[in-house]
């Protein structure tokens, strides 16, 4: 029993107190500021947030793809027992595209326009598996077949511009999966695609995940995509995780006012809504973050303590981890049910 529990809790990657900053002439910009999470083996963790929340910088930090003036300032990224932040650049190169792969939002800018699709898949395979070019191209055909590109023998010779957006994203996935990675980091993989194509790609990704037993991190702003593909969700706001839970708990019982606001401000195509709830104001500038809770200036429940002190991410009974004073013993305001009271609190403050 205990053994079984251990297994299901085993995580492929564990991020601890990750801090990534950009050092500009305006001073330090803390894009990712003390982020903790882990991805259980074989599962999908979704990281959601709006522009500037630090979600993409988190994924780039895991790949160690942060360039000047950015720097990973501190923390640990433990991948299968080893800290990626202590690896040399050469060691990282043998991990990237091999054990950890990444797919990006815009396939046209991440594919090389002057090489054929086949060459680009073969390249990854040759480098990491040390095979011949011929072998690599054979693998490329297999991979294109796997990701559902019709007539793969012909398409290995195609250049990126000869493919449609959906096909290009499939090709990107083929490159990423060529070396059988253990972790796939997908940064907004379907954001640039039309919905019918998005549905195809999401279905493809989850099918491949089942077949290959990969773990996945999905970075997205789209709560619908999260609900359909993820097992666990971390909500980020201004460089910090504000809520973490399994996907069912997060959507049925969100605890952080930001998560609640985000869900309520989303126009739904499947139900009628009268007026959309809004989140007042806007995301704080990263070079000028509020002192206390970073969401406090926009939060309808905020009190003095919220503006003064930053709460920790704490475990709640329902299974959520939440960074909010309301759910602590120290809360000095009236009792609040964030989900039910959000609307009325919102209208009384605005």
């Amino acid at each position, binding site marked *: 029993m205990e053994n079984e529990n251990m297994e299901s809790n085993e995580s492929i990657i564990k991020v601890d107190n990750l801090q990534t900053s950009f050092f500009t002439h305006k001073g330090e910009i803390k894009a990712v500021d003390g982020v903790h999470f882990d991805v259980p083996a074989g599962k999908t963790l979704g990281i959601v947030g709006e522009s500037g929340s630090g979600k993409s910088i988190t994924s780039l930090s895991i790949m160690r793809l942060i360039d000047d003036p950015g720097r990973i300032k501190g923390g640990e990224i433990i991948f299968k027992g080893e800290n990626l932040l202590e690896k040399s650049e050469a060691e990282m190169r043998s991990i990237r595209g091999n054990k950890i792969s990444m797919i990006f939002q815009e396939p046209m800018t991440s594919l090389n326009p002057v090489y054929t699709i086949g060459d680009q898949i073969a390249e990854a395979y040759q480098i990491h598996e040390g095979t011949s070019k011929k072998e690599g191209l054979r693998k490329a055909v297999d991979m294109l077949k796997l990701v559902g590109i019709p007539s793969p023998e012909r398409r290995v010779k195609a250049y990126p511009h000869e493919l449609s957006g959906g096909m290009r994203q499939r090709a990107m996935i083929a490159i990423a999966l060529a070396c059988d990675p253990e972790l796939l980091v997908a940064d907004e993989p379907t954001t640039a695609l*039309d*919905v*019918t194509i998005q*549905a195809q790609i999401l279905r493809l990704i989850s099918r491949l995940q089942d077949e290959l037993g990969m773990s996945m991190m999905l970075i997205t702003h789209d709560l619908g995509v999260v609900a359909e593909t993820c097992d666990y969700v971390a909500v980020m706001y201004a460089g910090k995780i504000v809520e973490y839970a399994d996907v069912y708990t997060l959507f049925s019982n969100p605890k952080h006012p930001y998560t609640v606001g985000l*869900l309520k401000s989303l*126009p*739904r195509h499947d139900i009628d809504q009268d007026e959309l709830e*809004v989140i007042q104001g806007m*995301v704080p500038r990263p070079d000028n973050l509020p002192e206390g809770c970073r969401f406090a200036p926009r939060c309808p429940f905020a009190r003095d303590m919220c503006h003064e002190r930053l709460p920790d991410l704490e475990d709640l009974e329902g299974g959520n981890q939440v960074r909010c004073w309301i759910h602590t013993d120290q809360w000095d305001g009236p009792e609040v049910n964030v989900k039910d009271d959000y609307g009325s609190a919102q209208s009384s403050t605005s």
Partner: protein
Amino acid sequence: MTTDLLKVQHLKQYFPIKGGILGRKVNDVKAVDDISFEVKAGETLSIVGESGCGKSTTGRAILRLDEPTSGEVEFGGKDLLSLSKAEMRKMRKDLQIIFQDPYASINPRQTVRQILGEAMAIQNVLPKKEREARIKELMTTVGLGEHQIDRFPHEFSGGQRQRIGIARALAVDPKMIICDESVSALDVSIQAQVLNLLRKLQKELDLTYLFISHDLGVVRHISDRVLVMYLGKIVEIADKKSLFDNPKHPYTKTLLSAIPVPDPSIEKDQIILKGDVPSPIDPPTGCRFHTRCPFATDKCKDEDPELRTNDDLMQDGHRAACHYIEEIESGEMQPNY
């Protein structure tokens, strides 16, 4: 009795493709291919569809930002396509547009005061002396402060910039606004603010919207009626409720089922389409959706279906362009995936 403010008939917009050594026209991109619809005064009609379906082209053709190939566009009883350039410019006082990217559609070297002032000067609304007060009023209307009047666009966030775009459209006191993906570039929390603002303004100022969007969630929220386009053609048009609850065209059904629902406890029956949208240069014969449609037959390959209704199955005003509305509804025809 509501009247039609905008009436579009048999609108076609072909863009020539030039090729060969002589640069002759070799073919056309049939971006919009013979569509007709009306927008009633005071309502919001949305046009939805995926990239390349012709929704934005339709908006631009109505405003004559691109000259349509053929068809008729009647606005407030006037035939827009017969107007001279100068007359059309005057007409745009009543018919405004808000674009997707507020950064690209606002002059970065002008302050908000200049942006709004210029719009009024061009259309000659209000005597000069009163414009200043009106600009301040507009700022408040769209939820920006009067004190921000002398700022430049880069000093605002994306959502605020879109509010400037809205204020500019409102500056000339239009009857109708075409919103072309006007909230698509915004984060959800900001998008909700702008959507609520658009709805509030519609009530207060009695505006009519033609709302162009790819996002069916947004469309359900803001529309009275919805028009679905695929490859330059209208495939379905209906009341919002009727369209979302009782879609009849297989494409509309797929589109609705493809949208991810932000609720993991809902198990949906997702229809996954085969392949990509075909090229509008050589669109498929017959029904343009037949190459991807799970119900397609030989008839669909040959005959272009008309927009039609069925009184037993569809509400008043609900029309779909499919040969097999009845057969699909009764289950007589089964999808072939």
